């Protein structure tokens, strides 16, 4: 049976991971390559590296880093952050990334999704959607969740599927950072209605939240950052726990 995926997300600034990490046997806690390999060894199914480098000049560092990650990792990984066009994507895929993720750029120029799917294949195009529940319903936010748009989340999700997205990474701005659990309603709605996988993101605080996002949220994959980075949840324990609830995971 196809397993539900557990995906740690690593934020990278100027070539170093940002959040503190409590790992044993890591020579350099800030080294994304070492960290990624440690997660792979623990049983992470996939990894996401997001470049949050502020300056455009330093983005070259990231492509170089992606090359180092690709040499080391034996599981799939996705990269994103600041991608504006097809050439940015080509550079990252050539460096060895398996998939890329775009967010603001897709909202700004929706035809970019089509262009990327046609040139590189849908399987490597992950569209990240930041969603917030407002008086107008679930709407899309851009610029790292700072700027609201007029787009309804479900309409935008359907549109990117039609334009050729291979996966959707759905982050709830209401839940992100709260550790109170994933946004089950909108996750379930999209996961059940869309013909492509939905990665749920934002709100993971306990192992039970992962049970809920798979059982009730029907997510295909769940992403988290701090609970993994600070060692609050260890991936092998999490997977054993999920198995007790008859959730199929790779062990």
């Amino acid at each position, binding site marked *: *049976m*196809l*397993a539900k*995926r557990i995906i740690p997300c690593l934020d990278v600034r100027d070539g170093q991971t940002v959040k503190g990490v409590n790992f044993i046997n890591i020579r350099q806690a800030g080294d994304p390559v070492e960290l990624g390999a440690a997660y*792979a060894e623990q049983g992470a*199914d996939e990894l996401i590296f997001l470049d949050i480098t502020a300056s455009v000049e330093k983005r070259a560092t990231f492509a170089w880093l992606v090359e180092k990650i*690709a*040499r*080391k990792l*034996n*599981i*799939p990984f996705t990269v994103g952050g600041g991608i504006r066009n097809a050439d940015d994507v080509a550079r990252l895929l*050539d460096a*060895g990334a*398996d998939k890329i993720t775009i967010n603001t750029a897709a909202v700004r120029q929706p035809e970019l999704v089509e262009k990327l799917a046609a040139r*590189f*294949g*849908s*399987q490597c195009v992950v569209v990240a959607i930041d969603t917030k529940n407002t008086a107008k319903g679930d709407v899309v936010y851009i610029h790292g969740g700072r700027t609201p748009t007029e787009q309804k989340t479900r309409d935008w999700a359907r549109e990117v599927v039609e334009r050729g997205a*291979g*996966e959707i990474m759905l982050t709830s701005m209401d839940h992100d950072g709260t550790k109170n659990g994933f946004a089950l309603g909108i996750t379930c709605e999209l996961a059940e209605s*869309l*013909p*492509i*996988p939905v990665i749920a993101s934002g709100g993971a605080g306990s192992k039970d939240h992962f049970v809920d996002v798979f059982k009730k949220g029907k997510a*295909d*994959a769940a992403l988290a950052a701090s609970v993994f980075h600070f060692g609050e949840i260890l991936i092998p324990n999490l997977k054993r726990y999920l198995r007790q609830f008859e959730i199929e995971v*790779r062990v």
Partner: protein
Amino acid sequence: MKVAVIKYNAGNIHSVRLALQRLGVDPLVTNDHETIRSADKVIFPGVGEASSAMENIRANGIAELLPQLKQPVLGICLGLQLMCRYSEENDTECLGIFDTAVRRFPPQEKVPHMGWNTIDSLKGDLFSDIASGSYVYFVHSYYAELSEYTVATTSYILPFSAALQKDNFYAVQFHPEKSGMVGEQILRNFLEI
């Protein structure tokens, strides 16, 4: 050991090379017939679309060369599909090394079949020391039907061939280069055949 990775207009060649390098083998990525013919092992990778890939390997003569090879050959993903007789993807005649057809998954579940799934009914050298039920990483919308050449099966929507073998020709639908320790062992097994 001389390992040739066939170069053509397909997507995952770079990651296959990196995976081999992790195992201590530096492969030649090439479409030169003589280099391929004289290699100890040949890997035929691929992520992409069947008809344009066939067109590409017909144009450079790989389509003619590949079925004649005598050393162990490993097809990966699209490589496996192109080694079959026919693919429903744009109604494509393929190499016919495995006399079986490649079909599109019916849309009862999400397609592509993407992620980690288990392999069972494992047969032959490729799966030495691999436990039935091991997880490997898949990304594909088309599958090879079960046949006399099937040496591993996976179920998604329906049971299909996760791996095929006939004589010196081996092929896997999943990506051993992205399948963690299990994938590394399968690649190592291939190199040791």
